[in-house]
């Protein structure tokens, strides 16, 4: 008679010994899993953010152009010069306008996709939003350069239906108009809205999909008209989604420097200022200080959004 096999199998090698070790000390496995990614993100990313902060407290010697590595608030004070303050305000106004524009165009799409689209149409709407979201950013901007050009499709279409007068009247408005759509602030606005629109649609749709149908029925039972239900039930429940979307549209507009460079006037935005200061001007401390501005604004924005419960919709 052979002896019965023991209930606990013998260890067959290093792999088994490690398995037993992880079983006895789950924290050890956690540490092994987390160390490489945290080292990467901690060193490369947080380290870099820290370097950015450090640089912003340095200053540049005005005569030699050499970075002086001693702490000073001088560089931050430079942000409050009239021309730099202009850049910050222009960026904030554009970001706010783009956010509102995106919200207005996104709402019907998100509402339809969440409430009415079924089966095949659901997939069409999903892919229809996701593909533009992921497809090449530069190609999208480039497409708009073609569309808005003076000899491009919009001018052609306006001439075709006899609306050139209106187009020219819009372009003549000081502040938003310009020589052609591709060299006007209005053009910059349109491209921003186009490029960030999917970022607004997705969280809005997620929030709207969570509105229970029973609530709409209850609202109707209590005698509310469609408009009343929309205003007092749907809209407040969609608000966290709108705020979540606005975080993306606001933050992305504030940091972008490609779009104002390709479509628009030569007026600078924060992103463009950062890029030019670190490149041709070689003033890394001021560039870093400029880059801190969006971080601070976003932190304030996120704190407010968190109070409004926007993160449940992400």
């Amino acid at each position: 008679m052979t002896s019965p096999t023991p209930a606990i199998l013998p260890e067959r090698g290093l792999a088994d010994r490690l398995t037993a070790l992880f079983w006895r000390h789950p924290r050890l496995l956690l540490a092994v899993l987390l160390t490489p990614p945290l080292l990467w993100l901690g060193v490369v990313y947080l380290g870099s953010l820290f370097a950015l902060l450090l640089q912003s407290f340095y200053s540049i010697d005005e005569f030699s152009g050499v970075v002086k590595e001693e702490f000073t608030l001088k560089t931050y004070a430079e942000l409050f010069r009239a021309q730099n303050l202009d850049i910050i305000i222009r960026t904030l106004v554009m970001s706010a306008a783009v956010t509102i524009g995106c919200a207005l165009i996104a709402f019907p799409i998100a509402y339809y996709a969440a409430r009415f689209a079924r089966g095949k149409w659901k997939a069409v709407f999903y892919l229809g939003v996701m593909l533009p979201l992921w497809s090449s950013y530069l190609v999208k901007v480039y497409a708009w350069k073609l569309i808005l050009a003076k000899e491009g499709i919009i001018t052609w279409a306006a001439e075709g239906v006899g609306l050139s007068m209106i187009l020219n009247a819009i372009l003549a408005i000081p502040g938003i108009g310009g020589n052609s759509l591709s060299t006007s602030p209005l053009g910059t606005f349109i491209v921003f809205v186009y490029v960030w629109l999917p970022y607004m649609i997705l969280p809005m749709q997620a929030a709207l999909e969570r509105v229970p149908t029973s609530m709409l029925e209850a609202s109707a039972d209590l005698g509310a008209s469609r408009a009343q239900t929309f205003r007092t039930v749907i809209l407040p429940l969609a608000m966290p989604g709108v705020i979540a979307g606005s975080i993306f549209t606001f933050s992305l507009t504030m940091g972008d420097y490609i779009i104002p460079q390709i479509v628009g006037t030569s007026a600078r935005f924060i992103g463009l200022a950062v890029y030019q200061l670190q490149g041709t001007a070689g003033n890394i401390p001021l560039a870093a200080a400029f880059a801190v501005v969006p971080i601070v604004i976003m932190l304030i924005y996120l704190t407010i959004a968190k109070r409004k419960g926007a993160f449940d919709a992400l």
Partner: protein
Amino acid sequence: MHSDRASLGLKIAAVGGLLFLHLPILLIFLYAFTTEDKSYQFPPPGLTTQWFGVAWNREDIWPPLYLSLWVATIATFLAMILGTLVSAAMARTAFFGREQISLLIILPIALPGVITGMSLRSAFSIMDIPFSTWTIILGHATFCIVIVYNNAVARFRRLSGGILEASADLGANSFQTFRYVLLPNLGTALLAGGMLAFALSFDEVIVTTFTAGQQSTLPIWMLQELVRPRQRPVTNVVAIVVFLATFVPILIAYYLTRGGSETAGAGK
């Protein structure tokens, strides 16, 4: 009963919005065939296929294309390893600092690219690191981690913990469980995450301009052509190539994860 039909106005606004998202991209395809090479004239005065040949023979396009492919491949590879590790740690266990780590992972895409780029640029400048292919890869891998993480963690959540225990009960060690149980279940989610990371890296321009120095990836080449155009139709051809190089992986990622609760790509 609350009305379950959309009003005509809503339908028009919704479909109009979708068209607004798609029509501009189609225009790029038309412009690649135009005979006019000095301006963006519409409608094109004539159609030709010669620009594809011209683009093929332009020697300044190939090195940026190879660099972009190389960078995207390595960055995706790194992001897949790091993203899988962190999602495995985050999926099952609750531990101190979990919230902070999840914030740390999404930060690189939550903050505008110009901040990520400028941060890396500051760090390279302080530490005297010269620009190289690896400085580009460093930046790309950082923001690609979250893409892989998002896909993998959603799949982990759906996976029942029971099958891992069953595997252990049947005598498999952790590595065998990973190889024979976990990996087949995670496979499509990881592949989808990798596809999206590749598309994102191949197309990235904002962070890259801060970490590339004098090198040029394909998007940087395109950006230079946009600022100072030389042969516009050639740029159109390259735009189509870039578009397809991102479009195809996205579609594959969608089909890989379709039907699950976690269809890929909902969060960029």
